[in-house]
Each structure stands twice: as C-alpha cells, then as structure tokens.
C-alpha cells in the first residue's frame, strides 16, 4: 500500500518538474517549487524517515524565501 502511495507522489513530483521547466513566469516556478518540497516532505514521511522529513520541511521554506528575495531584482518573464 505504501509503495502505491509513493508512486502516486512521485508522479506528482514529475508533473511539478515539467511545469517548472515549461513555465513562462519565474514567480510561478518558485511558488510551485515550494509545493514540490512539501510533496517531498510527505514522501519522506511515508517511507519512514521522519528526521529527514523534518529537515526538508524547514529547509524547503527557507530556500523558497531566498528565491523570492532574488526575484525582486530580476525580471519575472522568461522565454
């Protein structure tokens, strides 16, 4: 049962990665990356690694904030 749940979450991660690669707006990419790290945290929790999930939950938030700070000085639109 956990393996099926893991597979579903991995498919979600792959979809999010495709959305990041093909997106046109950097702000949307960064906010989607926050969702990516949240799904990763769920995945680590399911497979029995709560220590790693705890670390990922905090570090994902901090790296998203770093990306958003940088977005103030660069253009959001990309080709």
């Amino acid at each position, binding site marked *: 049962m956990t393996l099926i749940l893991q597979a579903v979450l991995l498919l979600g991660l792959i979809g999010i990665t495709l959305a990041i*690669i093909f997106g046109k707006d950097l702000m949307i990419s960064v906010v989607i990356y926050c969702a990516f790290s949240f799904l990763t945290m769920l995945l680590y929790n399911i497979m029995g690694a*709560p*220590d790693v999930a*705890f*670390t990922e939950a*905090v570090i994902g938030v*901090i790296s998203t904030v770093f990306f958003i*700070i940088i977005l*103030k*000085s660069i253009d959001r639109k990309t080709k």
Partner: protein
Amino acid sequence: MRKTITIILLITAVFVPFIAFNVLPVIGDPSSAPNTHVSDHYIEHAIDECNSPNMVTAVIVDYRAFDTMFETTVMFLAGLSVIMILANRPKKKIFAPSSLKRFRESGHPIYKTVNKDVMISIIEPVILIYAIYVLFHGEVSLGGGFQAGALIGMTYLLDVMVVKREKPIFNLPKKRAAAIAGIGPFIYALTGFISIIGGGLYLEYNKFPFPIHQAELHSIGITAVEIGVTIGVAGTIITILNALMERISFDDDIN
C-alpha cells in the same frame, strides 16, 4: 520543440541500460545488502554504546562524528563564500539604508489592515522554544542539531521579513553573523580535543575526563556537539540572508 526532443532523448538514454540489467535490490527486503552488514550493528548497539534511543542521531554525531564535523565546516564555508562573492560594491554613492525599509513596506495596501506585528510576536517565542526542545531532546526523540539550527534561522528570517522595525532586536550584519557561524565548528572541534586530554582518540566520548557514568559521558558529548552544529547552521542561514538582502537593496538603488 527543441526542449521536448532533448528531454525524450535523455530519458531513453538513461532507461535502456537500466531495463537491460538487474542490479538493484528489491525495495523492502530486510536481508538485502545495504540492510545487513554495518547497519545491524548500529541498530542493536545504539542504546548500550551511545545512550541514544534515536538511532539517526547516534549515527550522525557518535559513530560518524568526524564526518559531521566537516559537513558543518562546509556550511560555514558556503556562508563565507557568499560574503566573498558579494563583497565588492559597484559604485560608492549608492548606499542608502532607507531602501531596506521600502522593501519591507511593499505589498498591497489591504494587507496593512492585518496586524502582523502581534501575530509574529506570538509565533516567534513558540518557534524558539520548539527549537530548544528539538536541540536538547535530539538523542531521545526526533530532531537534532541541524533542525534546531534551521528553526532558529527561520525565526530570524520571519522577524526580518515581516515585522517593520526601526531597529532590529538582534542586530546581525553579515560579518558578525559569519563570525557566529564560525563559532559552531570551533565548539565541535574543541569537544574532540577534550577527549584527547582524557587519554582517548579524537571525539571518543567515553574517555572524557569527568568522574561520572559512561552513559552520561556520551550524553554530554552528543549535546555539546549538537550545540556546535546548531550555532553553525543558524549563523550560516542568517549570513546568506543578510548578504543577499543587502545586495538587493544596492541593486534597487541603481535603477
């Protein structure tokens, strides 16, 4: 179009050798190669050798403590290199401290009706208490030095980004924060030398020169090392945040 073709080519190139050979163990097999040799020893002897029921903490800061020391040093060096890359200033005259305040006030005016100061003042002490709890219970329950350091760094980040203050409570410019981050690996390395004084090897906790029981010595060693890791990680996060925010305000004044 070029993107799609490249992605498909790469995926095929990775998949063909993987389907042809069968080298990886089955997931969930308790007798596969990564699950047998040394990890059984870690699981069975974590309590009587290290006095630490959380086996992850036992692996990180007791069995493989020398490894973790250099991981903390890598974090410190990352913060230092961020300062070095952003050290030069493009023009002298562009320094203006008021721009940082404008950055904090940005946003839609409807959000000014929410009283963020009160919310943050309630949340911040709770996060700090939780960080201290995670730090000192790292060997008994989930958590440890890295998580506590990241939580303390996140508290500083919340304080800087959300609350509008004339003068911040903890005034930590990037140089001072880097000095604090350097204290962490220093405490870690000093803990190793204490066990050398007691006649053991480097970071061998049960040779500490204190007249108490063996298990207590391990607890003291793990706690000291984790305090060092916490200070290092929190200092590095604050360093990177301050360096980036300072440069962004410079960058804003040019345009």
